[in-house]
């Protein structure tokens, strides 16, 4: 069930904690308004280190907005109580993104629905971009990457099954391949958290499964914290032990995916046509 700001506050004294003991992400009283639209309403949530969390909800429920706030890509409303921390470091507070947000972003791999690769650059160069925040400015400016950085990028591509396409332009690959290249970029980044914003929304079922399996593997084998927003409930239930559901900008469910019932899903999605509830029912009953 959703937690309140009061419940989160006691967790915020970390003076003696190591990075592994800290929550990966803490969001306290997050509000966001776009014009007249209240996109997020007092979001309080913690994502623990090593978790794989599925964010679900209808289109416009606030999933993407929430993920972008974590990475500091957008600022919250200017309310003093709004605060977001990643590994204990403040990303934004009171509507102000912190000045050294780039350092924090370097630890967060962000996967977008539309892949956000540079189509005219090779896959290898796109993956090497993941290392920009960690190399001196003069090297990044002149595209000077060391042999070991290139080798690591090749290993990242190999891990997602794309090493043989390294020199191909990103724009020539299929959607599924581009999304896996985006995952390779997060590997090159050595990200400790992956935020995936509807990473399979524009993929065919086989590519979608492959991408979700890769994310699951990174969570299981590498201990990377994964927060993934999904429209496909069946994938969320299958791959994410914890589900956070948003409805009209509010968290309406936060718990184990095993506790999620078809009736709750029906309420979360207003029983609209976005979700085939009867198709999901057998999967829920299988658990």
């Amino acid at each position, binding site marked *: 069930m959703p937690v309140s700001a009061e419940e989160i506050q006691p967790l915020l004294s970390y003076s003696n904690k190591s990075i592994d003991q800290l929550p990966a992400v803490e969001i306290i009283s997050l509000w966001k308004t776009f014009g007249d639209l209240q996109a997020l309403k007092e979001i309080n949530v913690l994502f623990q280190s090593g978790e794989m969390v599925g964010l679900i909800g209808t289109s416009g429920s606030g999933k993407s907005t929430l993920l972008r706030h974590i990475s500091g*890509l957008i600022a919250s409303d200017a309310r003093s109580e709004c605060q977001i921390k990643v590994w204990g470091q403040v990303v934004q507070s009171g509507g102000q993104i912190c000045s050294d947000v780039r350092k924090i972003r*370097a630890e967060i791999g962000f996967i*977008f629905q539309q892949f956000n690769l*540079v*189509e005219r650059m090779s896959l290898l160069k796109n993956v090497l*971009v993941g290392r*920009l925040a960690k190399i001196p400015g003069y090297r990044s*400016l002149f595209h000077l990457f060391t042999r070991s950085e290139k080798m690591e990028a090749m290993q990242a591509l190999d891990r997602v099954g794309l090493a043989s396409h390294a020199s191909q332009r990103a724009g020539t690959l299929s959607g599924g391949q581009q999304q896996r290249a985006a995952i390779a*970029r997060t590997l090159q980044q050595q990200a400790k958290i992956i935020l995936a914003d509807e990473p399979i929304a524009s993929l065919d079922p086989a590519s979608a499964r492959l991408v979700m399996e890769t994310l699951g593997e990174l969570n299981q084998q590498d201990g990377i914290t994964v927060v993934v927003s999904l429209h496909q409930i069946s994938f969320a239930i299958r791959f994410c032990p914890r589900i956070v559901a948003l409805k009209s900008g509010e968290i309406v469910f936060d718990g184990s995916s095993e506790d999620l019932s078809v009736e709750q899903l029906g309420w979360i999605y207003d029983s609209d046509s976005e979700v085939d509830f009867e198709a999901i029912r057998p999967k829920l009953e299988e658990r």
Partner: protein
Amino acid sequence: MLTSAENNSSARLEVPKTPLGTILSCFVATVLLVAILLFSIEGAEIRFGDLWKNRGNMLEYGSGFLKPDFLDWPDYLQEMIITLQIAVWGTFLAIMGAIPFGLICSSNISPSWMTQPVRRLMDLLRSVNEMVFAMLFIAAVGLGPFAGVLALSLHTLGTLSKLFSEAVEAIDPQPVEGIRATGAMPIEEITYGIIPQVIPLWISYSLYRFEANVRSASVIGMVGAGGIGMLLWDAIRSFNYAKTAAIVLVIVVVVSVLDFASSRIRRLYI
């Protein structure tokens, strides 16, 4: 033949009428255009009859072009090469300036307090003709090709900055956001997210401006800014049509070859 179902639907459907406002605005626009053309007749001294009246002069002028005089071809070639060199440097300096100024002029990556003054400065450079710049620079650095280089580079800087910035404003912002999300600095967002997207257009615009600059470099020579234009001006002033024809032919051949080559190169990048 229409089927009965189609006949029924035809009865229901109505072709939308053109709104009266659209018709009126077309009419007003046409009347305005005609009025402007009529108003300009006197100032521009439009007298098509003179073409017929002075046909003798024109035939004499044209017949000179039928027997081009290539006796001094080594001079023409040498001056044409200088013309190309003026165009090369004029374009190169303009590109070097247009990269930063084009980025500063782009409203999607620069704040308006930066874009607006720089845009106005570029407007100014664009609005002054190369010929005027050439005369100004001749006064500053003396007669010769360097004045031509400076004249071309300033005018081209104004043009390319505008074209470069328009290309930047039309980019897909998503790859840039993807790079920003990795913790990259703004300069890295430009280097990796923006430049690769705009480079084909930038190359295309630069080649196009180079072609235009070769033509312009041929003309600014007439005011003493070096190149084949000086020879051309001498030939025209001395009514030596055969020589004029030879020089014009050299210019036409070189410009055509460059047009062909640059269109081929452009195709490689787009």
